[in-house]
């Protein structure tokens, strides 16, 4: 049994690095800690009630809304944010960009960009699970990510492009 110390101190593992947190208030979400204490503002705060997906991160490999994770309860767990996606990137045109990120740029899927990090996390997870998802499968996988600018058209196209690149990487 672990008990966090009562003065709001704990350590998170974010993008493969130990990140100590001190003086956190009791109710701070993982999203708040990432953005306001750890300088990782890539995850976004469009609603803070789990209804938009803009705060999506991977927690022990699963995509979750970081606004609904109590920061202290994520102590010692593996957190991957959009900043980590960039670091993990494999082969692509722009150095440091993953196929999904590059595909978003090529497909014109970025307008204001506020939904983009959350979508990239959700799509990255989808393509980990399915290498050639059909249209409905993609739409269901991103149904938890609201976008107000694009109408999803270019985003769907970006997923197709990224899926193709990832399949090509796998096949020698």
């Amino acid at each position, binding site marked *: 049994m672990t008990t966090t110390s009562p003065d709001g101190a704990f350590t998170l593992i974010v993008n493969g690095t130990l990140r100590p947190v001190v003086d956190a208030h009791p109710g701070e979400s993982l999203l708040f800690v990432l953005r306001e204490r750890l300088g990782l*503002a890539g995850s976004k*705060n*469009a*609603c803070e009630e789990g209804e938009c997906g803009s705060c999506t991160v991977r927690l022990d490999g699963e995509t979750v809304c970081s606004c609904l994770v109590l920061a202290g309860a994520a102590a010692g767990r593996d957190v991957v944010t959009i900043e980590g996606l960039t670091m993990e990137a494999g082969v692509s045109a722009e150095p440091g*960009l993953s196929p999904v990120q590059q595909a978003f740029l090529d497909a014109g899927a970025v307008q204001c*960009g*506020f939904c983009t990090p959350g979508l990239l996390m959700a799509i990255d997870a989808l393509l980990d699970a399915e290498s050639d998802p059909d249209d409905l499968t993609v739409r*269901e996988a991103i149904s938890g990510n609201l*976008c107000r600018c694009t109408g999803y058209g270019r985003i769907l196209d970006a997923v197709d492009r990224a899926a193709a690149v990832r399949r090509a990487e796998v096949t020698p």
Partner: protein
Amino acid sequence: MTTIEAGISTSTGPRIGENASRPDGVPKVTGDFAFSSDLHHDRMLWGATLRSPHAAARILGIDVGPALAIDGVHAVLTHEDVPGRATYGLEHRDQPVLAADVVRYEGEPVAVVAADHPDTARCALAAIHVDWEPTEPLVDPALAEAAEPIHPDGNVIRRIHLRHGDQSAADQPDLVSVEGTYEVGMQDQAFLGPESGLAVPDDDGGVDLYVATQWLHVDRDQVAACLGLPDEKVRLTLAGVGGAFGAREDLSLHVHLCLLALRTGRPVKMSYGREESFHGHVHRHPARMWYRHHATSDGDLVRVEAHLLLDGGAYASSSGAVIANATCFAAGPYHVPSVEIEGVVVRTDNPPCGAMRGFGAVQTCFAHEAQMDRLADALGMDPVALRLRNALEPGDRLATGQVITGTLPVAEVLRACADHPSGAVGPDEPMARPGGAGRTADTEHVVRGEAVALGFKNLMFSEGFDDSSAARCVLHDGVATITCACAEVGQGFVTLVGQIAGEVLGVDEVILAPVETASIGSAGSTSASRQTWMSGGAVQLACVAVRRELLAGVAADHGVSADDLVLVDGRVISLPGDGSGDPDLSLDLSLEEVTVEPVEADVVHRHAPTSPLDADGQGDAHVSFAVSAHRAIVDVDPDLGLVRVVELTTAQDVGRVLHPLQALGQLEGGAAQGVGLAVMEEVQVANGHIRNASFTDYLIPTALDMPSLEVAALIEQPEPGAPFGAKGIGEPPCISSTAAVVGALRNATGLDLARVPVRPADIALAGQPEAEVS
């Protein structure tokens, strides 16, 4: 992290008409892009706002003492702490910075605090004691005019009575007439990036405000007036904008943040939560519209009459311009010789309404397209044929008396859309049927419907507003730096700048200077589908001026005619001699070497002047117009009233496509907002109270609610006077889309469906006494 970008650099790239890369694309996909809510300053405090829980009330007293006593609270401010003008506003300065003795809508700001943590700020808000005397709110717009004024400016914000043509035209015999009353609910812009910003006081009594907005300079003017400071002491810099759609045209937290920063001497950050955001910005005007159309039995429109009533809510915002738009375009893109429209926007204690993409034309398009379908039915005519028969053409006169002198391919747009083959297939997959994962429908429960709709509106501001945009181009060491205060809200203006400069100057590298009031004059608002024309035009002019000066200088230095020189791919090259110069002299210099001394130009770009509307709503009030058509195919489960939009097809009058992918982005995004208004989006207000101020219950389309958009055609007829011949394209996609979806629902169900958003009960319980839903 984050600071404001020092300047965004574009790479060599595709020119006008090609898919240039977004210069802000990489930071947006890596999470590095600094939105206004991402701003951070080490010494910053957190601001928060106390808002009225009442739609209407008197304030008998405010006691901030208990809040100030909380450890970690650095300031608590009320109306007494506003040093300059107590009120602000876009058209009328009728809205208090902080309420003094009365509140007129639920959510109206009453006090603001600055504290060391958002939790502390929240505690401070809870500790402020306001002595309220609630009063009965005025919430029915139909009663507003006759009611006691709820504001010194009165309850009628603006009335327009438009009369055009022979007013007795409907008296002729054998006309077919159809009448209807239509209603549009309150839509919200629902941008994802919350209202947010950072204010940093300087040592000299001034302040720097980093904020997401649509119009920096008009914000600055209002903020400076309220702070009682000269313009140069109030410097606004555009922070990253997470969408706008009209909701950032008015001030929200701007003055509040600056007041807190100046009072505490510390940087102060504020970021609205989603619930607060719903209360913190203006919404689309709800509308009630009565219409009567008269036509000959052959289908020629003879006369259109309408009464439009828009609910402006508590403060005026841009309501005057919205009702003008609604009125001017109320009859649709059709030739109507006789028109009488009365448009009124009133003040109530409902949430304030103002600009939202489409700006009045959305509401009237829903009505006029429903009327056209009704008329087609009464005439026994095909709905598309009726529209084609009456379609406006260049040279026609609008209901305002203005002759269309530019392009307006109404018939072409309609034909392209209506004739486009459909790729819609049956809903085989359960997930593709109405109801989605809820698995409510089997195929036998689903009925399909189809309809086409047309819509149009003006581009840019009207009625003699005298709009302009300023830009500066500096060409130095082969690099072009463009300064323009155009607010990038996602639409891709930053991309266009690189394309324009690249095309005019042949440069390899274009830098966009930070967007701030201190560096340059106003670019006007990112709204009204105006920025490509106005700010794109300003950038073009500035680059052209630089090119002219540069080439003149090079020509003089080398004894050639400037007419023989061109800028291509980062070089100055002479054309083959044509007899006017030495044919043996050929120049090929790098831009870098000829711009060791910077060449610069500052311009202000204006459009052709417009006129006000006279007492009959007549006048050459608009600069340009654009038309669009949508065809919707919908599946309906009539027993449950659930809907799935299966296919949306569109054609749009665009003048010229400057960036195919960004254009498609506007068409797809606008269509999604149109679908949202058609079937799911409404801010539900009961007695002045917003019942659904969250994304849980204010529903915008998810990826499972939007079909793909089929673009039948982008009709390119270059618009005279428009830079590159390009028309603004942002608004038409959300105008005719709503009307098309509802038309398709009517086609599927046979129901009137006179109100949007269409709710399941409107279909499932139609005709039942309990069908009136609250």
